[in-house]
């Protein structure tokens, strides 16, 4: 068993592109953990999507042996946490599994909103924090200014920050020494106490089944042990026990302070809950670790195959993905407009995009994604409370007493040149300003915003009004009542279910008008004129009229043309059959895809 004082467990907190993965690669490389020839960039980001987007979705870990200058060899366990707000709960659990953090800030950019949220999570977990200023080799680097900013904004001492370039390797040995000298060893921990280990993350491996990443708090876990998950009550035998270097390496036992993995013929990731407490089946510990909560989806949307023949393929893909992602929920949905599909729940917008990308890319299914929605709390006049996931399921408004919607606390950091546009955007989206401060040339605005306004196209608008310079992060802030209504879209007086949405009464006209205008361009002209309306209940709030088709005639048609011209008309007629029929109106599928696009 390794003495606690020679273990250091840590995570790295950084904004996207500030160099977290590159630093991790350097630490692994410099300590000889991986042979030079096996190195590839961003070792810890396993999925293509993670590498491409520069984000981490699953927690990863690596055990590094480091012979320090004091002559002792230390075991350093790095947990690479998901950095995105969608995975805030997973981040908080990973943080609880370690005692310290490296705060990596790009010396040419400074602190970003996402960094803030994660560093506060680390502070909440009582971490020691070592500031690391990266990219100091670049001419634009301003280490002093950024160090000052860290002290001002975050309130931690940055006077002895490590100055590094993860890319060139400058300063990496100092980082290793700082980990040993400045981060604390694991607290307490009795190897002979009943086993108490935290489930940090889990994922599916095609050869081993579910792999469970754990941090041992107390006691010892051994190969062959029968263990119990205290929250779910599930029991498993430990078939394989090991550590990541970063490849799997078997060990006989893991003691207090150690981080490693086990497998035990667990079939579904769904059976493992992040934050659960693992103990032995017999003589287990009495109380589970605090802070466990099951993950709850907050953003919903419909996923439909563009080609309705691919519905079964989509079902298969969604089921497979759900096996490996306990936080992703789904149920079957039918839409008159889009046919058969699934209503899916996600932890946030990024989670939605990742799942959608994986279905399209790994399963090769083209998808229509309906406008994202959130869960509304409906308080009915008869005292019942309903969670509304899909605007199409909205009951009769006369039976609803009031509606509550989820709110978020958003932190936006932006160069002050763009501040006016950002404030206007937040105001337009029904935001309430909570705080506005300046740090150097950057402003930090904190807003209370309705989540439904954020899931619509807030990110894209924010990016566009700030030319990409703003950073944004949020946390859920609970529910609040507001004047919310269901807006329906009627085409030729027929409601189109896939286009209904919940909106704030004050924003309904604007959204309704925008949708009607868009549909007017997307629906082909028919032989009759078609009213396109947005309505709340029976009241029309926006209207456009698609005028009747004026010209569709073949100018020349003589004897020699008959065969070809008739075939052309038959082909066009067959094409119309592929459209979705709403009363007498045929709407092409592309119209739905374009109308529902989030970025427009």
């Amino acid at each position, binding site marked *: 068993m390794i003495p606690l004082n020679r273990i250091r467990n840590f995570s790295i907190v950084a904004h996207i592109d500030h160099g977290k993965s590159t630093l991790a690669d350097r630490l692994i490389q410099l300590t000889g953990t991986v042979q030079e020839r096996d190195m590839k960039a961003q070792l810890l980001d396993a999925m293509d999507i993670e590498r491409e987007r520069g984000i981490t979705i699953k927690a990863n870990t690596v055990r590094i042996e480091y012979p320090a200058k004091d002559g002792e060899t230390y075991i350093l366990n790095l947990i690479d946490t998901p950095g995105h707000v969608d995975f805030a709960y997973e981040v908080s659990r990973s943080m609880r599994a370690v005692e310290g953090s490296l705060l990596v800030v790009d010396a040419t950019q400074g602190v970003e909103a996402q960094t803030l949220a994660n560093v506060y999570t680390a502070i909440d977990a009582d971490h020691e924090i070592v500031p690391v200023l990266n990219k100091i080799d670049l001419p634009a680097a301003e280490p002093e200014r950024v160090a000052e900013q860290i002290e001002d904004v975050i309130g931690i001492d940055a006077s002895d920050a490590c100055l590094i370039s993860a890319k060139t390797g400058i300063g990496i040995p100092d980082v290793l020494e700082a980990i040993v000298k400045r981060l604390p060893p694991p607290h307490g921990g009795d190897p002979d106490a009943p086993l108490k280990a935290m489930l940090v993350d889990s994922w599916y491996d095609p050869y081993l089944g579910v792999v469970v990443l754990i941090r041992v708090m107390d006691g010892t876990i051994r190969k062959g042990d029968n263990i119990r998950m205290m929250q779910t009550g599930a029991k498993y035998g430990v078939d394989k026990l090991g550590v990541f270097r970063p490849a799997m390496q078997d060990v006989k036992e893991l003691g207090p302070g150690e981080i490693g993995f086990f497998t035990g013929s667990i079939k579904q990731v769904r059976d493992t809950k992040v934050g659960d407490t693992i103990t032995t089946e017999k003589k287990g510990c009495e109380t589970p670790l605090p802070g466990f909560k099951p993950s709850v989806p907050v953003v919903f949307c419909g996923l439909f195959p563009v080609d309705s023949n691919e519905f079964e393929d989509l079902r298969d893909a969604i089921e497979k993905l759900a096996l490996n992602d306990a936080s992703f929920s789904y149920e079957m949905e039918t839409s008159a407009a889009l046919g058969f599909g699934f209503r899916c729940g996600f932890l946030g917008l990024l989670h939605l995009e990742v799942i959608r990308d994986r279905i399209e890319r790994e399963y090769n299914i083209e998808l229509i994604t309906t406008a994202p929605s959130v869960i509304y709390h409906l308080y009915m006049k008869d005292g019942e409370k309903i969670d509304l996931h899909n605007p199409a399921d909205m009951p009769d408004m006369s039976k609803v007493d009031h509606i509550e919607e989820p709110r978020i606390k958003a932190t936006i950091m932006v160069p002050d040149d763009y501040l006016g546009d950002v404030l206007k955007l937040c105001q337009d989206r029904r935001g309430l300003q909570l705080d506005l401060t300046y740090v150097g040339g950057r402003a930090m605005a904190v807003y209370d915003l309705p989540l439904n306004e954020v899931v619509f196209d807030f990110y894209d608008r924010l990016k566009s009004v700030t030319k990409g310079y703003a950073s944004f992060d949020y946390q859920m802030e609970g529910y609040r009542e507001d004047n919310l209504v269901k807006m329906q879209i009627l085409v030729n007086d027929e409601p189109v279910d896939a286009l209904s949405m919940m909106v704030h009464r004050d924003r309904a006209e604007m959204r309704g008008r925008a949708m009607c205008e868009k549909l007017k361009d997307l629906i082909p002209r028919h*032989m009759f004129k078609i009213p396109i309306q947005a309505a709340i209940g029976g009241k029309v709030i926006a209207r456009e009229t698609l005028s009747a088709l004026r*010209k569709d*005639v073949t*100018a*020349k048609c003589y004897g020699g043309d008959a065969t070809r*011209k008739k075939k052309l*008309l038959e082909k066009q*007629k067959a094409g119309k059959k592929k459209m979705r029929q709403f009363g007498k109106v045929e709407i092409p599928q592309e119209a739905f895809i374009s109308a529902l696009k989030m970025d427009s």
Partner: protein
Amino acid sequence: MHSGNSWRVVLTENWQRGGFGLYVHWPFCAAKCPYCDFNSHVVPAVDQTRWARALASEVRRAAEETPGRVLSSIFFGGGTPSLMLPETVAVVLDAARQGWVWANDIEITLEANPSSVEAERFRGIAEAGVNRVSLGVQSLRDADLRRLGRLHDVAEAKTAIRVARETFQRVSFDLIYARQDQTLEDWRTELTEALSMGVDHLSLYQLTIEQGTAFGDRFNAGRLRGLPGEDLSADMYELTQELCGAPGLPAYEISNHARPGAESRHNLIYWRYGDWVGIGPGAHGRVTHAHQRRANEGWKQPAKWIEAAEAGTGDRQVSVIDPQNMAGEYLMMGLRIPEGIDLGVLHGWDPQIAPESAIRELEGLGLVWKTETALGVTPEGRLVLNSIVKALLP
């Protein structure tokens, strides 16, 4: 005295209503126009003696297959049939005269380019027997003629129209409108001028961008600019009806206008879904044999066609059209003319086509009219005829 057999021919022709015609395709042009998707070819030299012989032998073969018919029309189309030597025309007409009985008032049309070279040939062509010309004037604006790739100019066209009127009993000319950058007022001026030129038949086509043409390629590449949108095209069409109606040249088909009695009898055969023999490269025919309607199609490549014709037949294929397809063709062609179609004939071929519910809906929109026996398109419906046909097809 009628034999039983010929009596049946008369009956068959009765429902055909359109009479019986001969179409001769001359596939050669001096230059290919960028908008044209017809079967036309530019070659350095044509052996007209050989072509005359091949066309005549095809006419004789077709005549043997259709004994007892009375020929009401002959049409030389192309390509540019005005490039045919008068002798070539004469050889083909001689073969037709020997093959069939001709109606007393037979209409013999030839499509001609209004260039000075061709105008000089009009006399000879008329002497060969042609009594009607259809001139491809296309525009009365020099700049537009150049854009359309035409080899003549407006002055030549006007001379050709004058010479044609002096030479032939009947003269028609074509104009293409809804051209690039053309305004409604531009067209009003141009059409008014055309109507003052004293012809009793005009074919007025909206420019259509066809795939596989030079314009089609430019359009696909996004480089064909200034084409009118749907609303302007519709306005131009409506203006055309208005301007032609006043001097007494109403539309008797979507794009064809004539003084009553001056309609092209040949083209009416197509729209009335009558019988016609098609001769020449890429030509199509529809001929009723023993209660079956046969479609024939000639080889498209001139070299391939002439070899095949010399070996026995220029047809690439001959097939029997089933009743459903007959009904579809009849519907599509017949609704182009104001008299419409006979519903009994249509539903006799295919009871599924043009269902009552679809007719009633279109009637409600004011796009079609219906009597006990006939179905036709209203003037309002003409502009959306394709949509009407699509709604009525099974």
